[in-house]
């Protein structure tokens, strides 16, 4: 059967969505774009297309990444495929006023060039329906704070891959405290040399072991924050 070409347009909605989950898993960008266009043309809302096809598919990718079944190269391919779908959906989502999960500002701290993990988190967060402003690498405390003022996000994410740069996260958090703005944001930190205890010691809200955990944590903490605001 493997030789048989699958014609996406011939599949029922349910089968197409299942196929898109597999195609995301395999990082097939063109197929994902085709699938998104098909669902929209069949009258699916952009929001349903995002959540049921793309987000649900990336959740499978995220779980297998978390469990050590997929690794960075596969996840980058999957995220690239998802980006193809997102590119089509983004203007439609805005036009239809679809609900958003929340907003995140993310960047690698000063002195650190390593952005693989940070990019994965950004892509997986977008895949989970968050709006993401990526500040790139080598961010000073001034750059983080300016982006927070400008974007008013729910979450600040900081990444460091080196023991020589990870203490800089505390500089950023301490400055936020000094300016009385620490409590306005959820602060998530991650990177290979970090751990839970370190994140507590520097005053972050949570340490995220990998991109999949970052998405789970972000969802839970944003929900809690919104509940507190409405209480």
């Amino acid at each position, binding site marked *: 059967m493997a030789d048989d070409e699958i014609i996406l347009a011939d599949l029922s909605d349910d089968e197409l969505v299942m196929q898109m989950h597999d195609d995301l898993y395999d990082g097939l960008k063109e197929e994902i774009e085709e699938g998104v266009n098909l669902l929209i043309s069949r009258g699916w809302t952009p929001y349903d297309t995002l959540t049921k096809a793309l987000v649900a598919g990336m959740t499978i990718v995220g779980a297998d990444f978390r469990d050590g079944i997929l690794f960075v190269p596969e996840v*980058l391919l999957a995220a690239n495929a998802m980006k193809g779908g997102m590119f089509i959906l983004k203007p439609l989502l805005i036009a239809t006023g679809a609900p958003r999960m929340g907003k995140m500002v993310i960047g690698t701290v000063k002195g650190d*060039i390593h952005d*693989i*993990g940070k990019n994965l988190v950004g892509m997986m967060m977008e895949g989970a329906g968050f709006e993401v402003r990526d500040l790139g690498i080598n961010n000073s405390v001034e750059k983080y704070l300016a982006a927070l003022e400008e974007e008013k996000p729910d979450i600040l994410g900081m990444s460091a891959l080196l023991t*020589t740069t990870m203490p800089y996260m505390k500089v950023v958090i301490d400055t936020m405290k000094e300016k009385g703005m620490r409590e306005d944001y959820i602060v998530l930190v991650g990177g290979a040399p970090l751990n839970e205890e*370190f994140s507590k*010691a520097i005053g972050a809200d949570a340490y995220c072991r990998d991109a999949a955990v970052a998405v789970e944590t972000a969802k839970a903490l944003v929900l809690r924050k919104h509940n507190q605001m409405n209480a």
Partner: protein
Amino acid sequence: MSQDALTKLLASNDWLMADGATGTNLFNMGLESGEPPEFWNVDKPDNIRTLYRNAVNAGSDIFLTNTFGGNASRLKLHQAQGWVRELNRVGAALGREIADASGRVVVVAGSVGPTGEIFEPMGTLTHRAAVEMFHEQAEGLKEGGADVLWVETMSAPEEYAAAAEAAALAGMPWCGTMSFDTAGRTMMGTTSAAMAEMVEKLANPPIAFGANCGVGASDLMRTVLGFAAIGSARPLIAKGNAGIPKYHDGHIHYDGTPELMGEYAVLARDAGVRIIGGCCGTMPEHLAAMRKALENTPKGPMPSPEDITAKLGAFSSNSDGTGDTSNDPKRERRNRRG
């Protein structure tokens, strides 16, 4: 061609001790977070001399230069990409000075860390650009008098191969380790077994290969067992972290004791490792304890995974990704295009 200093030392010793941490030690001397440690080669050379001398005095046969981030890609963050050659040359020259003054043979290993970029097609780094960057750094290290290049903390086999090619271009002998920090594999998914096989296929293979950094000493030893299972004749390197980083009063502190690192060193030697050192958090007192343990503990049998966890603590994941995975649960997949 005359033999390099490391090959000579390996020929006359069962094991050699390498050095410990660079970053952790420099922080204790006042390095600010976010600042490139390589600048200190020029700005605070006495601190770098102290770093090297402490490793030599603690009994290291090999120490790494303060040039880990000394490639154009990383130095560009600090607008210092034009300084690659100079920072590496000086970093190695300070090392040469300390090694020559030690009164014994000590190998100066020119540290070469990753570029921080991802290779094509996922990323933008081309093989050619990577080779060029590593070659530039290698020439600086060679000029400063490094005995060997020491490629470390690699995740991508492509980047490891690029460094091998650069070493050949510079005419430098080299060693190379990867960092296995993600469920027993490197971040890019390479297993210990895959690395051992990849190394033998290189046109310019290293003198020795192995693992550094990662997640604590237990995981690193499990990776070593993975290398040993392949049975490569090439000397193995183990440079594990002294435990896990903790934050105390503005300082990073690793929780592994000198005694634990002594146990780790003996286990590594018993597993057949020829070059044993530490990585992050490994201070001179750890090195001294490792040297003492290696000299005073008779060689034991190949350790089992149980021996490792009993002495060094639990592994961070159930499997290291090697071995038979055919019984692992597989996701139900639909047929798709080949």
